[in-house]
């Protein structure tokens, strides 16, 4: 398979509606991210489509269903299929979530929370060790958005720092999730970012959110159906000014605007990252 490998800066989530525009788009450091679950097929147009994309752009595989924080062990068949995609598409980045989505042989299409305990830390670190061995590469773990107060023994930034230390995993910092969770649970997003283990961050996500239809601004939903909010842009600037630029993704899954609007958000992120890079730390 023909592939292109180039340094990556700011990328976009890849939607089938934008395939042609994405294929021909050119910008320094542009890359695209997909959910591997949508490409776990034996053959046919989906894989052909992704091969065409991979011939033009670096790719990131962003898994949503490994269920690392679940009670059950990750599904062995799913892991085999993921490893096959990694071998075939040689992604520049590979990521998953600190969440669960599988129980009793059923898959729940969401990123569900678990109380952060010592036992969970051991379990997720062991699983990540096995996953990274099976894939033959490092995986970045994302902080999900939170809607519930749970009896956590660890704060999230500390838990992820220790997870990275024990398992050698990288981290994916979703800044919109930090903003949404801070509002919903009542903590300071800037303070969270300042404590986040910057050296482990391999990727940043930026996305839009919406107020809950019933509870309004007191309960934000990580809906990926709106432009990146000003508050999230400010947090992004704060983080990259401290940590330096990182590969960054604009995520948009619903109420898709024209491709050019997503490219404009991409340019804004690239400009913030470039300014941060120019400032001596």
């Amino acid at each position, binding site marked *: 398979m023909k592939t292109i490998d180039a340094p990556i800066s700011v990328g976009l989530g890849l939607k089938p509606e934008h395939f042609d525009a994405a294929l021909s788009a050119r910008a320094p450091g542009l890359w695209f991210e997909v959910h591997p679950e949508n490409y776990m097929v034996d*053959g*046919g*147009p989906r894989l052909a489509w992704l091969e065409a994309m991979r011939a033009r752009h670096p790719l990131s595989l962003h898994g949503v269903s490994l269920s690392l924080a679940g009670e059950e062990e990750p599904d062995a068949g799913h892991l085999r299929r993921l490893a096959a995609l990694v071998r075939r598409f040689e992604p520049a980045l590979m990521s998953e979530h600190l969440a669960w989505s599988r129980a009793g042989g*059923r898959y*729940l*299409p*969401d990123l569900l929370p678990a*109380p952060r305990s010592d036992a969970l830390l051991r379990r997720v670190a062991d699983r990540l060790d096995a996953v990274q061995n099976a894939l033959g590469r490092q995986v970045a773990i994302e902080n999900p958005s939170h809607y519930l107060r749970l009896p956590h023994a660890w704060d999230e930034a500390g838990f992820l720092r220790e997870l990275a230390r024990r398992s050698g995993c990288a981290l994916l910092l979703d800044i919109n999730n930090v903003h949404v969770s801070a509002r919903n649970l009542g903590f300071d997003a800037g303070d969270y970012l300042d404590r986040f283990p910057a050296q482990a961050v391999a990727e940043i996500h930026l996305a839009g959110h919406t107020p809950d239809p019933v509870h309004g601004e007191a*309960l934000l939903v990580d809906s990926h159906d709106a432009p990146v909010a000003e508050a999230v842009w400010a947090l992004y600037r704060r983080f990259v000014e401290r940590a330096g630029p990182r590969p960054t993704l604009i995520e948009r899954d619903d109420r898709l605007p024209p491709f050019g609007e997503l490219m404009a958000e991409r340019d804004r992120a690239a400009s913030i990252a470039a300014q941060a890079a120019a400032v001596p730390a």
Partner: protein
Amino acid sequence: MNTGTFERDFLAALWADAPEQQALAAQPGFAIYRNTVRKGCIDALEANFPAVVRLVGRDWFRAAAARHASAAPPDDARLLHYGRAFPAFLAGFAPAAGLPWLPAVAMLDRLWTESHAAADAPVLSPAALARIAPEDLQALHLPPHPAARWHWFDGAPIHSIWSANRSGDAQALAALPDLPWRGEGTLLLRPAQAVTWQPLDAAGCAFLDACRRGATLGDAAVDVLGRHPDADVAALLALLLQAGAFTTPNPHATP
């Protein structure tokens, strides 16, 4: 806190009819998980069964899909495959009793997905078969292409109903009320990566069934003529070859 207990409580509150009675669900944010999980399941079914959606309307479909999702959430993270049990669910769903053809239409939507996701393989061309000596043809086994799917429906014009609702073609939809009420079959194929379909008669479906079981062309012909004495097997084979329904007998050969 024991994670197993936490997960059990979480799942109970996720699917409960009166979730607010569960401690977790008393927090307003819990509804977001309930809504996201349900919406994920229902959206997947809506994407996977477009002909059924057009037949019954979006609101009816999403209400039926919600029932199916809470009774049988996905068993696979590949949501493209969610709905394997949906045709059987519709067959037992009381509000669908007045639409007896609905499960069959759902089954063809499901076969479309199977064809879409099936393995790639070369198509056996009619010219390749023409190079085989006639005396060797009888003993030849032709495997159906991995992306080929077919089904014969006795007694109802399921192919026409499904095809019109799958494509949304205005002329085909307008013709549905005047359909002759008789059995129809469908053959789905994936030439050039896009799934296509065409009608296929009962003898054609039986011929492909025999080939799928591994029968030689000679045995498949005998089998078809036993069930459909009027069938023109030579014409049938020519039609299936022309459509691209077979792959090469030996994957290492280059016909």
